[in-house]
C-alpha cells in the first residue's frame, strides 16, 4: 500500500490520570471518506484535536503523507493541508461571509506588512485574485448572494456550510468535519450528505467525519472507525460496523449491564 494521506500509529493522550485516547491506529487514504464514531465522551473530538495539532500526543506518531506532524503547531498543519470545521461553529463573528473565506486564504498568500502598506500593483492584483477566488468558492456552494452579510446572521445550516467553505479556502488535502450534522433536521441532513460527497469529489480531497448521526455516517462513509472509552473497538465498512457485536454493545449496552 502506498503512503497514506494520514496515519496515526498507537497514538495515546493522557490528561492527568485520564487516558482520553489510547493506542489509536488510524489510516486515511487519498480521497477516502472515513467516519469516526463512538458514544459521547469516546474521544472523537480529542482525536480531531490530536490530528490538527491542538493537542500533542503523550505517545505515538502521527504522519501526514508520510511526514511526522507531532509537535507542529495548528497553523502550520493548516498550511500543510489539514483543514477542519468545529463542533460548535466557530466563524469569525465580526466579519462578512466573504471576509470569512478571504481570511482563510491568507495563509497561502505570503503577503507581508510592507505589501499592505505600499499597495503596489502586485498587492492590488493579489487582493483582486483573493476576492475573485473567494467569490467563486462561495458561488459553488450558492452562498455568494450572502457575500456581504455578517457570517453570524446566516441561518444555522448555512453557517455550517460556510464553515466548510472556509475550511476549503485553505486548499486542504484532508478535511476534518466535526459533527457537521449536529442540530440539523432530516432534510438538512440529506443535503449535508450530498454536500460532503460533492466536496470530496469536486476538490479531490480526503475527508474524516466525526458524527453522531448513524444515518449520515452509514450513508456516506467508505470506512468507519468506532471509538469507545478512547479505544478503537472496531473498524470496517458500514456493513461490517452495523453487525459488529462490540459496536452494538457500546451503543446499546449488553444484557448484563441492563441487569446490573
Amino acid at each position, binding site marked *: 500500500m502506498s503512503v497514506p494521506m494520514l496515519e496515526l500509529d498507537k497514538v495515546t493522550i493522557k490528561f492527568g490520570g485520564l487516558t482520553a485516547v489510547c493506542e489509536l491506529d488510524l489510516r486515511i487514504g487519498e480521497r477516502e471518506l472515513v467516519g469516526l464514531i463512538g458514544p459521547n465522551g469516546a474521544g472523537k473530538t480529542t482525536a480531531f484535536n490530536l490530528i490538527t495539532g491542538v493537542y500533542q500526543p503523550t505517545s505515538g506518531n502521527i504522519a501526514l503523507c508520510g511526514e511526522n506532524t507531532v509537535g507542529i503547531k495548528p497553523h502550520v498543519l493548516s498550511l500543510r493541508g489539514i483543514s477542519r470545521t468545529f463542533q460548535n461553529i466557530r466563524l469569525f463573528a*465580526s466579519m462578512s461571509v466573504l471576509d470569512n473565506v478571504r*481570511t482563510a486564504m*491568507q495563509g497561502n498568500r505570503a*503577503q507581508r506588512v510592507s505589501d499592505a502598506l505600499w499597495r503596489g500593483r502586485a498587492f492590488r492584483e*493579489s487582493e483582486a485574485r483573493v476576492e475573485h477566488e473567494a467569490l467563486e468558492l462561495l458561488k459553488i456552494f450558492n452562498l455568494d448572494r450572502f457575500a456581504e452579510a455578517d457570517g453570524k446572521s446566516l441561518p444555522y445550516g448555512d453557517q455550517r456550510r460556510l464553515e466548510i467553505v472556509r475550511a476549503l479556502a*485553505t486548499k486542504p488535502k484532508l478535511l476534518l468535519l466535526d459533527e457537521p450534522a449536529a442540530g440539523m433536521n432530516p432534510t438538512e441532513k440529506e443535503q449535508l450528505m450530498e454536500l460532503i460527497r460533492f466536496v470530496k469529489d469536486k476538490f479531490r480531497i480526503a475527508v474524516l467525519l466525526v458524527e453522531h448521526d448513524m444515518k449520515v455516517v452509514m450513508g456516506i462513509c467508505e470506512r468507519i472507525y468506532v471509538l469507545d472509552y478512547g479505544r478503537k473497538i472496531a473498524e470496517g465498512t458500514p456493513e461490517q460496523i452495523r453487525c459488529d457485536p462490540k459496536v452494538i454493545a457500546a451503543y446499546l449496552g449488553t444484557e448484563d449491564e441492563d441487569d446490573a
Partner: protein
Amino acid sequence: MRGKEKIFLLVAIAAAVGLSMASSIFNRYYLGIAVDVGINIILAVSLNLINGHTGQFSLGHAGFMAVGGYTAAKLTLVFGASVPPAMQPLLFLAAILLGGTVAAVAGLAVGIPSLRLRGDYLAIVTLGFGEIIRVIFQTSEFFGAATGLTGITKMTTLGWAWAFAAITVYVVACIVNSTYGRGFIAVHDDEIAASAMGINPTRYKVTAFVIGAFFAGIAGALYAHHKLVLKPDGFDFVKSIEIVVMVILGGMGRTAGVILAAIILTILPELLRPVAEYRMIIYSLLIIALMLTRPQGLFTFGKKGAVK
C-alpha cells in the same frame, strides 16, 4: 481604488503642513489643543490596532509613549545645541523615529512573554509593564528622576502632529484592510479558528504590539516637544486608561470612530474648564452615560476595520 489610500495620505500631510504654515493667525491656546488632538489620534488609533482590531487588552500604552518621549527628548537635549538651525527639523525627525523605534523594541519585549496570556491577565501584565517603565524613569538620574526632563525645545507644530496622525491612520487602516491584515481581526474573533485556518496568532499579536508601540513612541516624542516638560507621573496608568476610553468610545476596531472619539475626548475637558472643580466629575459622568447608552461604541458607522 487605484492608489486611493496614498492620495489620502499625501493630501492629509499637505493639509497639515499647510495649516501649520498659517498657524500664526490662530490663537495659541486653540493651536495647543489642536496639537493635542493630533497626538491623541496617534495614541488612540495605534492602541486600536492592539485592543480593537487584534482584541488584546493592553493597558500599557502610556508606558510606550513614555519610552518614546524620553528617548526623543534626551536626543534633542543632548544634540540640540550642536546642530545648526537649518538642520533642526531633521534632528527632530530623527528623534521622533528613534523614539518610535525604541518604543517598538519595548513593545516586542513586552509582547513576546505576554502572549501566552489572555484578557484580564494580559491587561494586568501590560499595566505592570507601564508602571515599571514609569518607575524606571522616576528613579533614573539620567532621565531627571522625579523632576523629569525640562528645557526641551519647542519643536512640535501643528504640521508635525497632524502629519504623523495621518501617517498613523494610513498605516493602521492599510494594514488591516488587506488579506494579510484580516489575520488581526481573525485573531480577535476566534484564535482557535484562526490557527486552524493557517494564521499564526502569536505572530499577529506581536506584530500588533510592535506597531502599536512604535506609534505610541512617536506620540510620546511629539508630546515631549509640545509640552516641553516630561514628568514620570504624566505617564501613569490614568493616561493609559484615557487612551483605552477613546478606543472603547470610538467603537473597538473602527478607525473612523476612534479618531472622532480622540478629538471629542481631547476637546471636552477643555470645554469644561469654566466649571473648574466639577470638570473631572462631569467628564466621568459623561463617559459612564455614554457607555451605558452606547456600549458598542459611540460611533459605529462604517465597516469594521475600514476607513472610508
